C-alpha cells in the first residue's frame, strides 16, 4: 500500500479551478518534487494534503485511510503530516525553543522537559543550539527556515511537505537549507517538495512531477524528466528554466 494516494482531487477557489482531478502516489521514503510554472497548483496541492484547504472533489488517502471529507480528525492528520512554508511562519513572539516545543507539549502532551531536550537535540543537529533562546527576527532567513523544518520534525511526522521553502531566501542562504533536506532524504524521510530548485530536484528526487493545468502533466524519474521530457509543455518549461540559467 502506498503511503499517500491523491485521487482525482479537485480544488476550486470560487470559479477558479486550480486542481482539476490531480493524481499522485507517494511511496514511503520517496522524495517527490513538484515542479511547474507559478500558479499551477503546487502549493495548493500541498495545502490540501495537510488539510489546510478543503477539496471539492476526489479523495486523498494516507496509508489507505481517507483523510479528506467529513468526519476526518484534521488535528490527528496533521500530527502525521508536517508542512514547511515559503515564508517560514515561525511564531514571532516565541523563542526558537518555544516554537519547537509548543506542538509536542500541547498536542502530543509530551512533558516539558522531554520536549525541551528533544528540541535542543534537533537544534544541535542543525548547529543552532546557541540560538535556542533567540527570537525568530534575530535569525537569518536560512536559520529561520531550518528552525521551521525542525519545528515540523519535532512532531515526528511520517510525511513532510515543503512548499517552495527556499524561494524567499537570499541565494547564499539556500544551500544551508538544501543541505538539511539532503540529510533528511538520506535518512529516508518521505517528503514532497514544491520547488524551483531544479538542480536540487535532479539530485535528490525519486520522482519528479510536472504540474500544469491543474493536473500532473508528466511524471517520472528525474533523469527522464530533465533529460528527456516527453510532453511539449514540459519541454517548454524546462527550456525556459535553462535559458534563465537555473538548471
Amino acid at each position, binding site marked *: 500500500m502506498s503511503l499517500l494516494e491523491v485521487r482525482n482531487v479537485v480544488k476550486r477557489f470560487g470559479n477558479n479551478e486550480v486542481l482539476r482531478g490531480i493524481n499522485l502516489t507517494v511511496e514511503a521514503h520517496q522524495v517527490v518534487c513538484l515542479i511547474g510554472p507559478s500558479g499551477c497548483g503546487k502549493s495548493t496541492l500541498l495545502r490540501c494534503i495537510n488539510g489546510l484547504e478543503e477539496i471539492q472533489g476526489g479523495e486523498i488517502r494516507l496509508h489507505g485511510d481517507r483523510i479528506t471529507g467529513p468526519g476526518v480528525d484534521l*488535528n490527528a492528520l496533521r500530527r502525521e503530516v508536517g508542512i514547511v512554508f515559503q515564508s517560514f*511562519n515561525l*511564531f514571532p513572539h516565541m523563542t526558537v525553543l518555544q516554537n519547537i516545543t*509548543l506542538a509536542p507539549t*500541547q*498536542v502530543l502532551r509530551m512533558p516539558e522537559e522531554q520536549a525541551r531536550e528533544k528540541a535542543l537535540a534537533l537544534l544541535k543537529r542543525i548547529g543552532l543550539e546557541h540560538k535556542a533562546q533567540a527570537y525568530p527576527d534575530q535569525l537569518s532567513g536560512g536559520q529561520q527556515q531550518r528552525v521551521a523544518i525542525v519545528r515540523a520534525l519535532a512532531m515526528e511526522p511520517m510525511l513532510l511537505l515543503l512548499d517552495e521553502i527556499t524561494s524567499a531566501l537570499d541565494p547564499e542562504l539556500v544551500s544551508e537549507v538544501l543541505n538539511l533536506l539532503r540529510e533528511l532524504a538520506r535518512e529516508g524521510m518521505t517528503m514532497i517538495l514544491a520547488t524551483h530548485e531544479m538542480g536540487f530536484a535532479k539530485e535528490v528526487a525519486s520522482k519528479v512531477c510536472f504540474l500544469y493545468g491543474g493536473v500532473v502533466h508528466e511524471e517520472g524519474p528525474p533523469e527522464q524528466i530533465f533529460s528527456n521530457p516527453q510532453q511539449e509543455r514540459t519541454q517548454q518549461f524546462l527550456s525556459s528554466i535553462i535559458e534563465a540559467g537555473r538548471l
Partner: protein
Amino acid sequence: MAEPSNTKEARRRRPTPPKDGFAFALLALGWAVCLAVATWGVMVRVKAVMSANNFQALWTDGLLLLVALLPLALLLPASRSLQQSIQARRALAAENLIAARVHSAEAHTWAWFTLGYAGAWLLLLLLVLFFIANNVAVGRTFFQLELIASSFGLILQAFWVNVVIFLFAGVLSLLWGLVVAIAKLLPGRPAQPIRFLATFYTDAFLSLPSIIVIYLVGFGLPLTGIAFFRSLPLEALAVLALTLTYGAYMAEVYRAGLESIHPSQWAAARSLGLSYGQTLRFVIIPQAVRRIVPPLLNNFIGMQKDTALVNVVGVIDAFNQARIIASNNFNLSAVTTVAILFILITIPQTRLVDRLVERDRARFRQG
C-alpha cells in the same frame, strides 16, 4: 553673452539668487518690540489689580518685573536675523552667491524663531488678561486657593471612588471585551447565533451613550426588585454599566487585533496539529494583544473620564462631591481640583501610550 538669455539652457545655467530676508527680519523685529511693550502693559495692569485687592509683596513685584523684561530676550534672535539679512545683501552685491545663501538662510531661521516664540508668548499674555479680567473674577471663580485647600481632603477621598470604579471596570471590560471578540470571530455554522448575538451587543453598546447605560443600569436594575441587584452597592452597578459599554469598545479593538494577525500564522499553528482554541491561546492572542496595547489603553483612559458620569445615579464620586462643595460655596474651585486630578492621572498614561506606539513603529521599521 552671445546666446539668447531666455532659452531653457540659459535659464538652467543662471544660478538662483537667495531670497532676500531683510523685510522678514524687520517684521520679526517689529513683532518682538510690540510684544515687549504689550507685556509691559499687561504687567502694569496685573500690578494695578493686585494693589486694588490689597495684595502686596516684594517677591511678586520682582516676579512681575522679570516677566515684563522677558520678551526683551526676543530682540536677540530678531536682531541677529536682521544682521544676517544685511550680510546676505552685502555678499550678493559682492557676487559671493554661496555666502549670500548661507546668510539668507540664517536670517530666515532666526526670523521664524522670533515669530514662533512671540506667538506662544502672545497666547500666554491673553490668558493672563482673561484671568485678571473683571477684577480677577475668572481667577477667583476657578482658582480660589483657600477653598481648594480646605476641600482637598474630601475631594481626594471621593476621587478614590472614581479610581476604584475604573480599576474594576477596566479589568472587567478587558476580559469581557476579549470574550465578545472571540465570540464574534467563532467559525462555522453552529456558532452563527453566537456571532449574531455578539455583533448585536457591540453594535448596540457602541451606539449607546454611556451616561444612558449608567442611568438605566444604576436606577433600573434596583427598581426591578431582584434581590441580587438591590443588594449591590451603587458603585458596583456603575462598574457593571461601564463594563458593558466599554466591553463593546474593547471587543472592537480586540477583533481588529485578532484579524490583523496574518493567516499564515493560523496555517502554521494548525498545520502542527494545534486545535482552533490552542492556536488562539498560544499563537494568535499573544501576538494580537501586543499590537493593540495602545488602543486598549486609550479606551481605558476614556473610561476613566467617564467615571465622572456615575454622579447621575448618585454615586458620591469626586465630581459629585465637588458639585456639592461648589453649590455650598458658590465657587467652582473644587471642581477645578477634580479637573486637575484627572489631568494628573491621565497624562502619564497618554505618554505611556505614545511611547508604546513609538516602540511599535521602531520595531516595524526594523522589519
